[in-house]
């Protein structure tokens, strides 16, 4: 690109690679006929962050990531990456981006090495560095021994690792991973998580879509919860839990309680769930509420156990969207 197409940040702040966000999405929408896949979404992802897009299948995560990478045209709104407008400086952005699409997009008929070699050539990695980079990446993703094997002989986890290695080959500043551990076994998932965490140590910005909340919690500095194409919440996992979860009082009774409605009527009670002899009460005021719960339930029988804990992200998600993540 002959001219710099970076945009000034709002407020006329001068552009530089240090102070611009890695990704800035403003009022982004995508329509497919009558279906609104992404609905006026705005996000700002800082450099060096691991940022998660969380939502159920069909929530608009992949559509959002496709618009961010320039694979899909937004109906409205803008996307800037490292200060570059995606549609004005597509070529410059492609050099900055490393992508691991959900379906890996590997050429399965050829070897791992041939895949990486092709990637190196089309991404313009200098010839003198090509061999060393490929060796390093294969080493990183523990596939050196299988470098000459056709990708179609690889397991799902190996393919994901190779796709990740390929994304890193041209040393991008920003990596996006669409459902990076979908369909891989627990061991491979752990290995991929480790690779992703090493990216942060290298100062890379990582954008992940996932519908595994444990993955989001383990990896992400911040995450955005998306539902029906809309941004429901964005914050660190801890803040999300504090902000939207409150506390959970778990009570085990000797016999199934008949006091559920009375519990719901107590001041400060959010949700009450009953599963046999187990009661789960969500509240923001556990300190005040615990004595009242004990008092109420002990009138009808023995309380075997009571505990107060932080909510998990699944519960936050349920509270925010009204449905479990994988409904």
């Amino acid at each position, binding site marked *: 690109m002959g001219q710099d197409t970076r945009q000034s940040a709002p407020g006329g702040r001068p552009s530089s690679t240090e102070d611009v966000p890695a990704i800035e999405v403003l009022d982004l929408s995508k329509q497919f006929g009558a279906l609104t896949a992404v609905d006026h979404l705005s996000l700002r992802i800082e450099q060096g962050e691991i940022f998660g897009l969380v939502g159920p299948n069909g929530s608009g995560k992949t559509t959002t990531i*496709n618009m961010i990478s320039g694979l899909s045209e937004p109906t409205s709104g803008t996307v800037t990456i490292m200060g570059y407008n995606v549609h004005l400086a597509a070529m410059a952005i492609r*050099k900055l981006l490393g992508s691991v699409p959900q379906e890996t997009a590997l050429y*399965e008929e050829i070897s791992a090495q041939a895949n990486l070699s092709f990637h190196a050539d089309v991404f313009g990695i200098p010839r003198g560095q090509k061999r060393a980079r490929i060796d390093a990446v294969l080493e990183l993703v523990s596939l050196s021994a299988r470098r000459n094997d056709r990708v179609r002989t690889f397991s799902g986890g190996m393919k994901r690792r190779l796709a990740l290695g390929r994304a890193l080959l041209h040393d991008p500043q920003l990596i996006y991973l669409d459902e990076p551990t979908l369909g891989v076994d627990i061991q491979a998932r752990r290995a991929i998580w480790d690779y992703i965490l090493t990216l942060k140590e290298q100062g890379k910005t990582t954008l992940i879509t996932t519908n595994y909340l444990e993955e989001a919690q383990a990896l992400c500095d911040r995450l955005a919860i998306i539902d029906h194409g809309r941004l429901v919440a964005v914050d660190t996992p801890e803040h999300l839990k504090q902000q939207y979860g409150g506390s959970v009082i778990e009570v085990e009774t000797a016999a199934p309680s008949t006091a559920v409605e009375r519990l719901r009527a107590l001041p400060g009670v959010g949700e009450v769930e009953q599963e046999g002899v187990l009661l789960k009460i969500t509240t923001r005021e556990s300190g005040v509420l615990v004595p009242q719960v004990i008092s109420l339930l002990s009138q009808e029988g023995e309380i075997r156990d009571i505990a107060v804990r932080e909510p998990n992200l699944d519960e936050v998600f349920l509270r925010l969207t009204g449905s479990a993540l994988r409904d």
Partner: protein
Amino acid sequence: MVSMLQRLDTLLRIIWATARKDMLIALSERVFTIVGVFLPVNVLILMSLFALGGSQAPTVVVMQDTGLYAQQLYAAMGHAHSFRLERADRASAAALLKAGDVVAVVTIPSDFDARVAQSQPVQVDVQINNLNTDFTNDIRRALPLSITSFYAGAFPHLVTVSPQEVDRYRTDTDYIPYLTVSVMVIAIMIGGLLQAGTAAAREWEHETIKELLLAPAPRWAVQVGKMLGAFLLSLGSVVIMLAVIIGIVGVRPAHWGEVIGSTLLILVIFIALGTLLGTLVKQRQALAVLAIGIALPLFFLSGAFGPISFDPLAVQVIARAFPVYYAIVLEQHAFHDFTLDPSGLTTSVLVLCGYTALAVALAALVLRRSTVRH
């Protein structure tokens, strides 16, 4: 200057990497052997067999008289270019006709020579299996013609009217050599469309298109790379087809250099069109149906059986809108030295080059505007 050279080097690297990757993939797939080699050669052989089988009417002659005049009539029938003759006795001939293996049984009676010698009327019995009007009419036209030819040979003083023929070309070209060259163009077309189209559509079917769309590489360079890969892969089948035509069918090229140049140019245009088609339809199965669906009408439309100038004006106008016509013009000149288009060979070359440039530009544009489904 250095930066221009660097840019050129980058582009060439992208083109070659894409071509090499596509070739590696194609060579690992069994379907490539079918698409790349067997299919075009099969088309060539099948079409030629169809032409060979359909061009002359199988006819049995029962020679009840084997005298000189009877032999001369048999020879005249043989020169009529309408019969595929064989001799049989009356019973065998009847059985062949009944079985539907022959179109006609011609019986030369036992007194043929005697009656001809005495200028007496002779009845040559003809039994026709008139199931097929085309063959039936061939027999009805060719037998009286054979009798006239026989008389012109045996009694030249009786047949006083004779044509004074002046030929434009030094030698006649048989129907089969003419048709075979046209069929080769169609076979290159099918092979090129399928080879290149499959490579383009495969990217969408296997969703590897994201790797290409996310690469910082000009889309035209990617498409040219794909075309180069398909071109190099198709060369094998082209060599085999030329070997079949020259070595087996026995068509000797009038201009060897033109044969090579025209064939490569024709391959390039159909490879470019195949890449465009594959990028548009994005599915290999649909592409295969489309390629064959396009090839068949163009085969009949574009002067495959004879010069297009012999066809009605409307057909000529339509034919000139398609590259197949110009491809046939070039190949017929290269093999037979025919000039089928009055505007000259240069026009045909320019039109084909124009089609190629257009197809490359459109293929790049379509890929440039391509986005993923979600």
